[in-house]
């Protein structure tokens, strides 16, 4: 990373750390949402951008992670810091199962994407029938009082959630940066470019693809746990919905699949613009459901058509940030 990039990163870090002190609670909630999608997008990016496997069913891991931790808390009072391990274990098992089925049976490309959708949809309908987890009526965790600060159970003010998400996103970035420069990074990129050629160089492509899937699902599980304790209500219809899966990929696709900062930038740009649009329309007296989504669709369309590598590479070049991954 060159000097300029380092300085910019430091400035951004300072700004992010200081945000809760200066921002309204609304801005803070938007910032938390951006970080959430930046994190989830980064997790998805490991599978797609690094290993080249298109998953359109990542809501599966968000949902299972969320329900696992929430269920334990709701029924047994087990806090999220313990529940997270069950969440990760379940999602890793699911991811490994999907990966195994797909890779062993040679399912890739569009068929793999459809497979992931099928699993997510199957689970969505399935959870509607699990009464123990609230069924279609939803699972509700008791919302914290404003003044209460119980970090062990993640009951606290919005600032707590903000810093938590910030830490998670920073950790994800660090992890991905490390992975990219490691053997895993090189092998994943090789597999993504040309799997057969990669095999001829001694790469056990099955094993490395599985690793990407497992890491991706584990990371997304954590996002699910956060989701559960931040929003406090879970409905299968919402959390497993294919729209959730699409929201997760919008950030990386717009920012730049396979890059390090793409998902973060994409999530930020998308959320901010969407919010601006909502505000402008609300001010003009227009409150129609679906406007925000149409906007997402248009942005996605424009980016896919004219900026196939996402906006991050162009931005990085303009800012003179040197060779970035």
């Amino acid at each position, binding site marked *: 990373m060159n000097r300029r990039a380092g300085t910019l990163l430091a400035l951004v870090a300072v700004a992010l750390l200081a945000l809760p002190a200066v921002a309204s609670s609304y801005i803070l909630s938007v910032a938390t949402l951006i970080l959430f999608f930046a994190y989830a997008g980064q997790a998805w990016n490991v599978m797609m951008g690094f290993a080249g496997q298109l998953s359109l069913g990542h809501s599966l891991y968000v949902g299972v992670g969320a329900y696992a931790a929430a269920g334990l808390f709701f029924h047994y009072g087990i806090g999220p810091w313990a529940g997270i391990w069950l969440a990760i274990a379940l999602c890793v098992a699911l991811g490994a199962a999907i990966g195994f089925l797909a890779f062993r049976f040679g399912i890739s490309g569009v068929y793999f994407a459809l497979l992931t959708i099928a699993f997510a949809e199957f689970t969505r309908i399935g959870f509607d029938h699990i009464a123990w987890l609230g069924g279609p009526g939803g699972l509700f965790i008791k919302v914290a009082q404003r003044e209460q600060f119980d970090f062990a159970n993640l009951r606290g003010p919005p600032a707590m959630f903000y810093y938590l998400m910030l830490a998670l996103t920073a950790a994800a970035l660090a992890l991905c940066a490390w992975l990219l420069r490691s053997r895993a990074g090189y092998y994943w990129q090789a597999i993504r470019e040309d799997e057969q050629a990669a095999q001829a*160089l001694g790469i056990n492509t099955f094993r490395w693809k599985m690793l990407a899937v497992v890491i991706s699902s584990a990371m997304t599980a954590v996002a699910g746990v956060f989701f559960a304790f931040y929003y406090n209500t879970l409905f299968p219809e919402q959390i497993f919905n294919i729209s959730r899966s699409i929201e997760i990929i919008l950030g990386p696709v717009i920012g730049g699949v396979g890059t390090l900062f793409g998902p973060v930038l994409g999530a930020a740009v998308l959320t901010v613009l969407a919010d601006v649009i909502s505000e402008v329309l609300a001010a003009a007296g227009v409150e129609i459901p679906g406007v925000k989504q149409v906007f997402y669709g248009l942005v996605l369309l424009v980016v896919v058509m004219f900026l196939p590598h996402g906006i991050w590479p162009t931005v990085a070049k303009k800012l003179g940030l040197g060779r970035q991954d």
Partner: protein
Amino acid sequence: MALLEVRDVSKAFRGLRAVTGVSFDVGEGAIVGLIGPNGAGKTTTFNMVAGAFAPDSGEIRFAGRRIDGLRPDQVCAAGIGRTFQIVRPFAGLSVLDNVIVGALERATGVAEARATAAAILEQLGLAAKRALPASALTLPDRKRLEVARALATRPRLLLLDEVMAGLRPTECDQMVAVFREINRRDGLTVLLIEHVMRAVMALAQGIVVLHHGEVIARGAPGEVVRDPAVLECYLGEEAQV
């Protein structure tokens, strides 16, 4: 015991017999050429040695160990490197990164792989272009990259699939010189499929000729090119020596 022993190997694709009862040896440190008209079964044989698919019958032994039926990555781990007939660089990666991927096979970490990769690029005359994306290379350079990448896996046996195709005579001679040098210095064994006779005659110490999936001649280059069966399959029955 030869380094590579191909014993009575056959392969059919849905009724089409591509390779029938092919046997040959490649001794350690030797350079052997596999020639024959198009459709003779050369690349099919290569693919079986490299693990792309298993033979229907027969055995393939490498350093005494059976390797037929192994996956391509296992074959590479055993010590066989290969190039592809139509080059397959990792287009989105830099030249150096391409070779690092290969070098990681034997290296303990990325740093060591980088050093190995740099040295090999030097050897193949690509050092100046290390930072370029592989997609920006000309065909001859891509061929060199393909070879560099395979060499980075430190193979004992290198399978070269028509690596000279499309190269000008001077470029071809340069490649020949590189292989000669590596063979002499490191004892690398080479099995090459070639149509460019200039390269075959300059490099190969022994030649195996395939036609319609069968071995029709084998021996020293001088003998093989005068063998009437070989001439017939290349030039037709009317040919005279």
